[in-house]
């Protein structure tokens, strides 16, 4: 058993070296497939990140009437906090609103002077952030109930409704398109790799039937081919790992000049083992699966 296993490994390695042209071609095709799968993984992360960034920019504000008592507002805030869809609620009093405005427009003397003359025109309000853009409708419905109308001046969801809905549909479409595109590209790449391996095995079909005729069992024949598939997969995965490392390392600073919060390189190092696993699994999976399928008909002798 152990002898057979050792022989299978040795035979696989010899054949990998002797058919080096074919092996290198297979490794190259696999590199392309694994690169594609890895970049889909990184791309998914990037789009998720951008979608979250955009969604974070959306919030709904509820403005309260001048005469609304602060206690009522704080009570309402606590109640809103209990809604499961709500991620965060922030209370901004009349005074704080004025302060924020003043800070924002520091240096614009005329504006601030005229503001000082008019007194504080701002209203106390709550900034509500939901987990997802689709949830604002429900939150604004809650705020619309009659019992609250005596303290609420307005909910600005209705002015921003179309923007929020647009963002929602764009982000969900990007997600869907990403998944579909990923599946199609992955499928094409896997087919190309499968075909390369199939051709490699086709060129050795005579050998396989001879092995059968001199009394080799199916596993003794399959073994070296499967292990060659694994060797190709592992080599391709390692090369791709180096490639992705280099690409992330060199391009990450360039991407960060566009979106400072998106650090692909630290994402790469943070998910290093996941990426290694994905790459190895893709390479070995394609190698083993393709050679097993491609060999089946030649083992019928």
């Amino acid at each position, binding site marked *: 058993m152990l002898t057979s296993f050792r022989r299978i490994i040795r035979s696989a390695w010899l054949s990998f070296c002797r058919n080096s042209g074919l092996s290198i071609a297979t490794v190259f095709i696999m590199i392309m497939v694994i690169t594609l799968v890895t970049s889909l993984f990184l791309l998914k992360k990037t789009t998720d990140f951008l979608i979250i960034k955009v969604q974070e920019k959306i919030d709904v504000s509820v403005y309260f009437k001048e005469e609304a008592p602060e206690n009522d507002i704080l009570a309402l805030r606590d109640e809103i906090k209990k809604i499961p869809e709500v991620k965060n609620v922030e209370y901004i009093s009349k005074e704080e609103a004025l302060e924020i405005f003043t800070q924002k427009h520091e240096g614009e003397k005329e504006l601030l002077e005229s503001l000082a003359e008019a007194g504080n025109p701002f209203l106390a309000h709550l900034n509500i952030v939901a987990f997802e853009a689709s949830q604002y409708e429900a939150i604004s419905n809650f705020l619309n109930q009659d019992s609250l109308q005596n303290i609420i001046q307005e909910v600005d969801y209705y002015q921003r409704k179309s923007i929020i809905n647009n963002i929602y549909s764009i982000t969900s479409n990007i997600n869907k398109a990403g998944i579909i595109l990923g599946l199609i590209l992955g499928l094409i790449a896997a087919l190309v790799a499968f075909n390369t391996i199939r051709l490699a095995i086709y060129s050795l079909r005579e*050998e396989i039937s*001879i092995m059968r*005729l*001199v009394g*080799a*069992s199916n596993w003794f024949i399959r073994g070296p081919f499967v292990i060659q598939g694994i060797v190709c997969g592992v080599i391709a995965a390692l090369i791709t790992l180096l490639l992705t490392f280099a690409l992330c390392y060199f391009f990450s600073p360039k991407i960060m000049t566009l979106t400072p919060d998106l650090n692909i390189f630290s994402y790469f190092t943070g998910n290093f083992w996941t990426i290694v696993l994905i790459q190895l699994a893709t390479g070995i999976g394609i190698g083993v699966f393709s050679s097993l399928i491609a060999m089946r008909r030649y083992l*019928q*002798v």
Partner: protein
Amino acid sequence: MIKFQNIAKIYPPDTVALEEVSFEIQPKEFVSIVGKSGGGKTTLLRLLLAEEKPTKGRVFFDDVDVHRIKKSYYPFLRRRIGVIFQDYKLLSTKTAFENVAYVMEVMGKSEEEIAKAVPQVLDIVGLTDKANNFPAQLSGGEKQRVAIARALIHRPDVILADEPTGNLDPYNTSEIIRLLVKINETGTTVVLASHDKEVINSLRRRVITLEEGKILRDEEKGRFIL
């Protein structure tokens, strides 16, 4: 030991290779099968190896119907038969040494046994200095001798030799035939398919003559007559 029973083999659509062929081979026998090329000699050997199925009839090896056993048992059947194929059937990605050693590896023999037996057999067929050559680097006769070495190495119960001297010069031919006779004398059954008149006549053993897929003659101490 080997029994062909009412064998017919028809290749679609209507090429008749064998028709109503029945004969038996006893253990330790040396049988020559002669006939024109295309006469069905190779088909007979293929049927015994379970490489092909007969259209009709049954083939027995040690009372086991070769075509009724499971595919996963074929290796065990084939390990008992050493075949010298007409077209050599060498593994092109392996050297002469590895080709011969492969049969022993398949059978799970130890490295020591292989290291000892393979050079011996290569010496017998006169290929010691070509052990590390690939089949593509060997001449027709050399390839044939590798095929012979591979058929002998694991001391099978039966040796099927399909035109084993087809590519050899007269000197090598008589060497190989002498080798086959010697192997037969140690108790191995030998089935020799050939159309070499001199070889068959010098053997003075049983000869089965096939013509157009039928047995024309089956004689003890037969001669090559067509």
